[in-house]
């Protein structure tokens, strides 16, 4: 991926000193992360590092205890102002409509067809008429290569196909930022490629993305910037060349990558 030249405008997503605990267990210890408009940032790291929790905080599927997450300057979970008041349900719903998420276990609505899965958000949240929504849904299904599966139920689709519908469902809402949570981890290896191809083409079109993944190859080829998390904080970050390059200074990261390539050597 060509190096990214951030514009002078403020970042689309700004995470500052984010902290979160589950009961007594500290998961996030003060994470700082910016994502600029049009940037693809990939988070890698060992399990338990807090990557998925971080992602789920961005669209407030998880609450956060301290720090801030702002999209285009607006705090995600809490109202503007000094007092830390939780946003109302309607407000949160509106914030979530600005982000799109694709899940590891697809989470397609099983009682709706592929097209209807995409149309649900368009009709109920974007308030489109059903004809317009269907046209859009078909457009995005074609974009992910599944135009002929529009009226199929998720149970009739393969894992890779379901995940592509999941991507279409998220992208059709035209979110400001796309959150991808280990979207290929639950797929059979031969189906991973078709999903990653879709993601790559979306990135090429300028979609802003925050990706959590185990696919180191994807991280290297598709990201503008890679963030390595360990123990609930950002341990290292930089463009792929730097992260995977020989001058990488972080011991933790080097160890992680070494274990990774050992595991993948057959």
């Amino acid at each position, binding site marked *: 991926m060509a190096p990214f030249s951030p514009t002078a405008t403020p970042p689309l997503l700004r995470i500052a000193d984010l902290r979160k605990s589950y009961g007594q267990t500290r998961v996030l210890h003060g994470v700082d992360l910016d994502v600029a408009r049009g940037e693809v940032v990939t988070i890698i790291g060992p399990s338990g590092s807090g990557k998925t929790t971080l992602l789920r905080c961005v*669209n407030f*599927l998880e609450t956060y205890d301290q720090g801030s997450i702002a999209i285009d300057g607006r705090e995600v979970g809490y109202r503007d102002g000094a007092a830390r008041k939780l946003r109302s*349900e*309607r407000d949160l*719903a*509106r914030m*979530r*409509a*600005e*982000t*799109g*998420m694709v*899940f590891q*276990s697809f*989470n*397609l*609505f*099983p*009682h709706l067809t592929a097209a209807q899965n995409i149309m*649900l*958000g368009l009709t*109920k*949240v974007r308030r489109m008429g059903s004809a317009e929504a269907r046209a859009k849904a078909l457009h995005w299904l074609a974009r992910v290569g599944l135009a002929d599966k529009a009226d199929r*139920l998720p*149970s009739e689709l393969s894992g890779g196909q379901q995940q592509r519908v999941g991507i279409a*469902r*998220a992208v059709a*809402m035209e979110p400001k930022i796309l959150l991808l949570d280990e979207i290929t981890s639950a797929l059979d290896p031969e189906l991973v490629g078709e999903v990653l191809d879709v993601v790559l083409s979306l990135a090429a079109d300028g979609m802003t993305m925050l990706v959590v993944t185990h696919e180191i190859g994807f991280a290297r080829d598709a990201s503008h910037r890679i963030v390595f998390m360990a123990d609930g904080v950002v341990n290292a970050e930089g463009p792929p060349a730097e992260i995977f390059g020989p001058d990488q200074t972080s011991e933790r990261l080097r160890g992680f990558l070494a274990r990774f390539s050992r595991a993948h050597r057959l």
Partner: protein
Amino acid sequence: MLAQITYAIPFLIPGLLVTLEVSVITVVIATAIGVLLGVGLIYGPAPLRWVIRGFSDIIRGIPILVLLFFVYYGLPLTGLNLQPFAAAVLGLIVFKVAQVIENVRGAIGSIPKGQMDAAKSIGLPFPERLAYVIAPQALRRFLPPWLNGVTDAVKGSALISLLGVGDLMFDIQKVVGRTYSPLTLYCFGAFLYFLINYALSLGSRALERRFSYIRD
């Protein structure tokens, strides 16, 4: 033997109608209340959840007969004097409500957690999440056990004969008392109950097949 049955039939019809009537009223009202309380059990604030949970556990932990006696003999003491029919139906409704709450809990609880996440992530507010994502899936999981419960309601209704309500069981007892042919009449009565419930269970199996395309 056949003569005894044909003699008895006209005397059993009123009771049969009462049994059907009681069953329908019980199931309809109890389902409406039970679904509301079940949703409150899953999505309500903590105190409400505890009350509903406590209610459901207590009612399901005692025999139906004890509940019926409690309602029948106890209610007048609170100043509410109901006819035996109304008291009996009230008791049956309370029992069925607890069952329906459990059905709802099981149905919604078996929906994968990711569904709520996905519904949230496309920006749906809570009422729309329930209406368009949770409810359709819950309904399909709710129907089979609920339909099984309907046969339980019909069977439980036989106990109201002990409170003097003139249902099918009550009429059977009356005819037996007059004709002294208990075995024939009880067998015939069993046949009638069996017809009602077997038809219901066939219906439930058909429904289960129709909704089975949702892969769990």
